[in-house]
């Protein structure tokens, strides 16, 4: 179901890092692409709001992926442009998406039954921080009263795999990959793969293992920007 294969891969500058001459790091679409290439044939995939949504643009050949949206939509296609949209049909980000031939709608309890029973093969989410212990935080910033949870805690606690996409460092340059989260966590010990603008990493408990470095990034450079031990 790679209907989006014809879409151009975004070629914007790497976000969170200045565009300096030769290509250095991944941009948002490339981060999403790298994770999407991990999707296996037949997977049921939930994409969080924001950068994770870009995973559906990635060409992953003839692997069939079904996208699940927590508002009760099983199977959906590309976002439609204004004027083409059906106002009764939105994904979890409120975007007007399209139906696929095998799309099905369900109510919210049935939608989260799918999530809670472990049928989502992977959920891809944004985050503020990821811990080497597999924890991550994405619902509340420091000092905030309340926050924005949505379906993130259900998905994080129950999906078979949790993939995270985030910028490697904050705007002030502080690492987002840390030994354990300082912010209130969304779920504990669940993250298996993290894509940043610097590369692809796997939490190991004590640190982060480098699965792949983004173009132009050196191990040393990434190690210096990572708050937990980096493993080669």
């Amino acid at each position, binding site marked *: 179901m790679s209907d989006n294969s014809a879409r151009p891969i975004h070629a914007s500058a790497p976000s969170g890092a200045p565009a300096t001459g030769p290509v250095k790091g991944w941009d948002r679409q490339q981060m999403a692409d790298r994770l999407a290439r991990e999707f296996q044939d037949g997977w049921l995939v939930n994409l969080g709001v924001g950068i994770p949504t870009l995973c559906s643009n990635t060409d992953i050949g003839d692997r069939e992926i079904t996208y699940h949206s927590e508002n009760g939509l099983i199977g959906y296609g590309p976002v439609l442009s204004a004027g083409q949209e059906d106002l009764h049909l939105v994904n979890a980000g409120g975007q007007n998406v399209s139906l696929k031939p095998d799309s099905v709608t369900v*109510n919210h309890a049935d939608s989260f039954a799918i999530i809670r029973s472990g049928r989502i093969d992977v959920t891809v989410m944004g985050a503020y921080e990821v811990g080497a212990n597999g924890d991550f935080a994405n619902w509340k910033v420091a000092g905030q009263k309340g926050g924005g949870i949505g379906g993130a805690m259900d998905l994080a606690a129950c999906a078979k795999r949790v993939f995270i996409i985030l910028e490697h460092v904050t705007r002030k340059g502080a690492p987002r990959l840390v030994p354990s989260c300082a912010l209130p966590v969304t779920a504990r010990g669940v993250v298996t793969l993290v894509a940043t603008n610097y590369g692809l990493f796997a939490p190991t408990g004590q640190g982060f293992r480098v699965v792949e470095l983004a173009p132009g990034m050196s191990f040393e450079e990434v190690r210096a920007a990572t708050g937990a031990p980096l493993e080669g």
Partner: protein
Amino acid sequence: MRSKTFGSFAEAVADIPDGSVIGIGGFAAPGTPYNLIKALREQGAKGLTCVGNTTGGAHQPRMPDIASLVENGQVKKVIASFTAATRPTDVLPFTKYYESGEVEAELVPQGTLAERMRAAGAGIPAFYTPTAVGTELAEGRETRKFNGREMLLEYALPLDYAFVRAHRADASGNLVFRLTQRNFCPLMAMAAKVCIVEVEEDILPAGALDPDAVHTSGIFVQRLVKVPAAPEGIWAVRREERKK
């Protein structure tokens, strides 16, 4: 059959007393009962507890939403899966009322929120879930291990009223939702003592709906109001705005 059809939104919400617990259906626009919320704002009941996925976004033009009831001084407490936007730079109209302490809030993960209302509608007083275990939301609360996995005890969330928007209804209150309009609506209908529905199409005679394709049985539905044509139907306002 006694008619469940009301002539106006004002009549359908007229008797809602202060202090009611009201579920407001919808996820983004689909299923959101804009007309009923607007009527409740005009009706003026106070001390309300409003339950919904969100309190409404920061989009312009503003649509009738929970935050608009908050702004009108009608709300004591909100139960929702967002009290703030996920992106810290998006400031929701509701957030400042919560941060200042003018309104209480209970923040509930979205799936737990849905299941708590489903439980209320299914006579289940409490259930266990893996969601939110190990987080701030579980602090001081009861957990228990099942098959080696820690689970959080969650309680049913019954409602006094449900406000929902459906695509089609028959005179006995059987409802059909269209596409992602369904979302929380059938669960709120189950959880509520009184479910009030704004209906997009003309209300059909009994027998017009396929019994196998009804999403909410009329036994859960007490009041129906037909949504008038735009601009009174509100929905169209946003559609027009989006075109600009």
